[in-house]
């Protein structure tokens, strides 16, 4: 797939995700050929589709397909997924309201599950978290450019500028780990970096948005809630970081993972 084809694909996907969400988006993407795309070019499909879910604020139960596909099973169903705190969840495809922190996501706790391959799913969630972070940063950026206090735009205050600069550093760093992730450890680290970046982003963006960012009418809370929920899925940033620490301690060396 060349750059022009990829841009066209991104445009089409963005249109669908702006128009519909949840089961309708699931159906639209199925019609569009999501299954073939995932099977034939996962390295294109996963960053593109999940990154756009983050940026547009839409959702669809596609993580099931990524995990099922990695397990060599048929897509289109659900699979029990590990969640933070050694718990398990199912991401329903029907879209029933949820009692979770992000009520839009049809995520349901279940008592037991089976181990599943998680590397590809972690990469997918990493891209989703990076997309969410970019969306939050865009909201905060627009606010500080427009909002005037003390006779100046908020964007002219260094304390505000530096928070947003730190946010971009975290997001770009996380994206670099996702671009480099190929094996299990690389995917684990990338999910940890992306989760951490999203939490950093939510904190800084919420702060510079001031009062408006704490209201239900402003979109920030939708992205922030989703970031919190997705961080826990397939292992939270904190849990994965501890796991990486245990691994290098046991090995006695820190794997370099990527070479020039």
């Amino acid at each position, binding site marked *: 797939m060349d750059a022009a084809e990829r841009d066209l694909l991104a445009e089409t996907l963005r249109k669908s995700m702006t128009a519909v969400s949840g089961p309708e988006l699931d159906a639209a993407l199925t019609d569009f050929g999501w299954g073939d795309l995932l099977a034939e070019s996962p390295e294109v499909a996963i960053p593109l589709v999940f990154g756009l879910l983050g940026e547009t604020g839409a959702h669809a139960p596609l993580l099931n397909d990524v995990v099922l596909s990695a397990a060599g099973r048929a897509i289109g169903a659900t699979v029990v997924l590990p969640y933070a705190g050694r718990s398990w969840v199912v991401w329903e495809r029907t879209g029933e309201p949820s009692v979770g922190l992000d009520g839009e996501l049809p995520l349901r706790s279940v008592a037991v599950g089976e181990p599943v391959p998680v590397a590809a799913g972690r990469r997918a969630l990493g891209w989703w978290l990076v997309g969410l972070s970019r969306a939050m940063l865009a909201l905060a*950026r627009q606010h*500080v*450019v427009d909002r005037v206090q003390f006779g100046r*735009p908020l*964007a*002219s*205050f*260094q304390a505000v*500028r*530096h928070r*947003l*600069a*730190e946010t*971009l*550093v975290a997001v*770009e*760093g*996380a994206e*670099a*780990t996702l*671009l*480099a992730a190929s094996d299990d450890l690389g995917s684990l*680290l990338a999910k*940890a*970096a992306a989760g*951490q970046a999203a939490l950093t982003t939510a904190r800084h963006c919420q702060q510079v948005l001031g009062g408006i960012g704490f209201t239900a009418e402003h979109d920030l809370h939708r992205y922030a809630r989703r970031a919190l929920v997705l961080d826990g899925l397939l292992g939270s940033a*904190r849990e*994965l*970081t*501890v*796991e*990486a*620490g*245990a691994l*290098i*301690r046991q090995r*006695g*060396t*820190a794997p*370099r*993972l*990527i*070479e*020039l």
Partner: protein
Amino acid sequence: MKVAEFRSSLREWLAGTDLSPGPDHSLDAQVAQLARVRRALYDAGWMRYGWPAAVGGLGGPAVLRAVLGEEVATRDLAEPGIYSMVEVLAPTMLAYAPPQLAAQMVPRLLSGREQWCQGFSEPGSGSDLASLTTRAVPRGDDWVVTGQKVWTSLAQYSARCVLLTRTAPGHGGITAFFVDMDTPGITVRPLRTMHGVDEFAEVFFDDVVVPGERMLGLPGDGWRLAMDLLPYERSTCFWHRIAYLFTRLDRLLAETQVRDDAALGAAYLALHTVRCRSHTTQRRLAEGERLGPETSIDKVLLATAEQQLFDTARDLLPGVLELAETPWRSEYLYSRAATIYGGTAEIQRNIIARRLLDLGKD
């Protein structure tokens, strides 16, 4: 030469060549060791890859220099900060020196026969580098330089200096020269730093006569020269430094008795993140892209990861820094400067806010 082929041949050669440093950790010994390592690498050809034939190089992509530096840092053959100085000095000469001067001088640097330094910062011009006031005044075919530089790494060992001077007001009034350090009127006074190594110096210029043919570029090109070397600092030098930091994480894993997987994992994640970021930057450079303000992100990630690593070392090796004389103390203290040298963390965030987030003027 292909990167993988270069790396494996180099590793084979290093395995059969003893370049390990002696027990003396003084700066004199470190600089002598650096010269020894350079000389051996140059004579065997490794140091010449990635540099053009015009300056004694054997050609090939610049990424070969990053690979060489990583192998040197991984084996602790030379102190990575001073090893990497050629990465900013030699490209400056290639881009701005008259070709015959570059051809004559650069091989002396690459081969370890000479050390060079960079006279940029001044007592009154730190973060605000463009306010520098060291004057250069024309006299016949020569220029006469008067003023003071500070934080000049290795000045006391250096044969030459890439010097920024003021020849007119403003950013466009900065002019660079390639100055022989044995010219009358130059006084070097090493600075004692908090980590106990006299790596930096103050350099005083008192009516120092510099021939006109030693100008780098044209009058007024100095600011552009200073900005042009950032991509080299932030690609090859960073890769070397990241390789060095990984060796210190490995050393910490070997020495710590404290089981704190959260702290070890966080230090590892920060290092892994900057390695991944630097990897994309190297690739962009190799594809001929022009590097710009986005390398400020690499800089913030690196400085943050370095300080986090040494903070973790202090936490997980309780008392070692404070009570025992080991390299951890000096390296920990040096890491405090990581958010200051090469443009402070605040300057980097200003650049990110202005140039990458488009937040307008502050």
